[in-house]
């Protein structure tokens, strides 16, 4: 920026500052209040529980479905009604390496903690994904 441009920019900063703010005319507030007295009182808009908590609800439902599916797969597999679906889940599960966090931390963890840990990671993942969907930048 050369000196001439700096002068021009200074001129803008100098004469467009809060010191040069135009004040509202006399009687501005009473005029508004006269109009407001004719208005109905504003009502607090409360969002429905479902709408307000849509993201965590979807996350929890997805995780619960996964956990229930996991429990059912490892349990009784003789029920023909869910056999196809559970068989598919089992195939997916068996194709993935068995998580063994106890060897990672050198301590013996109860197996349920493994699933809790995976569930937490999945929750975080879904929360981030849903946040991006519902709070996408305009």
């Amino acid at each position, binding site marked *: 920026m050369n000196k001439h*441009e700096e002068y*021009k*920019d200074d*001129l*803008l*900063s*100098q*004469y*467009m*500052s*809060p010191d*040069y*703010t*135009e*004040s*509202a*005319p006399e009687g*501005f*507030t009473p*005029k*508004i*209040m006269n*109009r*407001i*007295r004719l*208005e109905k*009182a*504003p*009502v*607090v*808009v409360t969002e429905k529980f479902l709408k307000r908590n849509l993201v965590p609800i979807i996350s929890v439902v997805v995780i619960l479905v996964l956990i229930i599916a996991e429990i059912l797969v490892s349990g009784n597999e003789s029920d023909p009604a869910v056999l196809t679906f559970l068989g598919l889940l089992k195939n997916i599960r068996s194709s993935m390496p068995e998580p063994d966090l106890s060897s990672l931390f050198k301590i013996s963890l109860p197996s349920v903690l493994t699933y809790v840990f995976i569930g937490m990671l999945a929750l975080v993942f879904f929360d981030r994904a849903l946040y991006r969907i519902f709070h996408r*930048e*305009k």
Partner: protein
Amino acid sequence: MDYKGDIYYIERVLSGKSNCFSYIVEKHKDRAYNLAFRICGNHEEAEELAQDSFLKAYRSLGSFKMKSSFSTWLFRIVYNTTISHVRIKKKGVLSLEDFPADATDFIGSSPSEDEAEIEYRSSLVSFALQKITDEERGLITLFYYEELSTDEIAEVTGISKSNVKVKLFRARQKMQMIIEKAEKEKIAYHE
């Protein structure tokens, strides 16, 4: 009386004490009026637009999220109300001839030559401001007069932060060119 913060008065208005809205108006009226005036360039219209904006804010007060900034929320209402108004009612564009040619033109109304020079430059900047587009005028006002950050301007106007920066840069360049042209005209006028 000490101002107890926007949220305090908003909660009181929402609990049925509508008169408490006057504290909010008193606190924000100048900034709201200034924003409307800088965009539309007319005192009467600016007053009307600022009043309409406060009224809209009052009606929508129930949907205001207490975690966000009230002034930014109000600015968004003023900005949108004023921009919509000036877009509907396009006014005549000023020509360079409309601008007084010299600081000496201001001496009659100013006690000293220095003050006349200040008044001249201030008018030059105001003149340049009226020559740019409504949207640019809004951005320049929020940036310079209201001293909002580009993040806040993006929130008020709904334009992305990067776009705000680009538009501000262009608006500044335009204003600088207008000021330069007006000053050249002044020199030519004296020659």
